[in-house]
């Protein structure tokens, strides 16, 4: 029996196409969060007072801190791309290391923040929320859902970064082939982008 060539997919490389694909994926994410923002808008419109009061319960300091570190991590990712483009592997790895560290730090902060809230009695279905009424229930319901899904994205981002770091060390990602890093970077900026809106909407309303 004659043997046929195995059909391999990646005959041609198309970085621009990969990037377009990533952008399209980002659009889906934007709309996914967009709908959560839409829900937020609707419920805030219906329960303005409760949302203001709910906002007071959240810690502006932790929120600001998380915003700042997330911004820094966005910058380090962007810089790591510059580093790779310049062929500076070591710098790229350091910059990505910082990003990874910050990503973990963000989650640790979230963990403590959530932990404190839950201990206090603010969690979906809790008696405290029940007493505080519908608006507050909604505020915290949305808070948990939105920051939870956001945290999930951070987690996925961490996974992607680990993969990218590994690939850089194996020299699979280098100064002429770095679209993986670029796309991971885009993804990470998206995570930042979402947070830029979550922060004022939940922490800064008084």
């Amino acid at each position, binding site marked *: 029996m004659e043997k046929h060539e195995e059909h391999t997919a990646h005959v041609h490389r198309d970085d621009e196409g990969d990037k377009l694909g990533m952008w399209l994926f980002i*659009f889906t994410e934007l709309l996914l969060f967009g709908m959560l923002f839409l829900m937020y808008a609707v419920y805030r419109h219906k329960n303005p007072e409760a949302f203001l009061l709910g906002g007071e319960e959240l810690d502006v300091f932790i929120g600001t801190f998380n915003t700042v570190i997330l911004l820094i991590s966005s910058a380090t990712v962007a810089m790591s791309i510059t580093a790779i483009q310049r062929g500076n592997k070591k710098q790229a790895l350091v910059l990505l290391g910082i990003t990874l560290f910050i990503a973990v730090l963000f989650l640790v902060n979230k963990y403590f923040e959530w932990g404190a809230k839950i201990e206090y009695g603010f969690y979906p279905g809790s008696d405290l929320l029940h007493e505080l009424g519908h608006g507050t229930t909604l505020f915290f319901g949305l808070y948990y859902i939105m920051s939870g899904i956001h945290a999930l994205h951070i987690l996925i981002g961490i996974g992607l970064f680990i993969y990218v770091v590994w690939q850089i060390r194996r020299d699979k990602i280098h100064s002429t082939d770095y679209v993986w890093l670029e796309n991971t970077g885009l993804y990470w900026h998206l995570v930042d982008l979402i947070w830029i809106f979550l922060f004022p909407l939940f922490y800064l309303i008084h």
Partner: protein
Amino acid sequence: MSEEKHHISSYKSHLFVLLALFVLTGASVAVTSLEMGPFNTLVAMLIAGGKAAIVLIWFMHLKFDNKLYAIFTTFVLVIFLLVLYVTFFDYSYR
């Protein structure tokens, strides 16, 4: 496609962008303590929009990449805002 020219942003420009983002973050925290009623949210959203634009344009490279991405992104935002607007045809007049 590696033949296509790539724009390489310098570290310095990234740091400038970061600085701008810090300033805006500070501004939005500071502004919260002012009493402006409904405008508080508006201002907060405008600042957040500005930050988002900065991230999109510089960090996400919309300025230097194929213009297509910028067009698509605008288009997506327009759709989202219109959906939001149309939804409020219901909620504003209930």
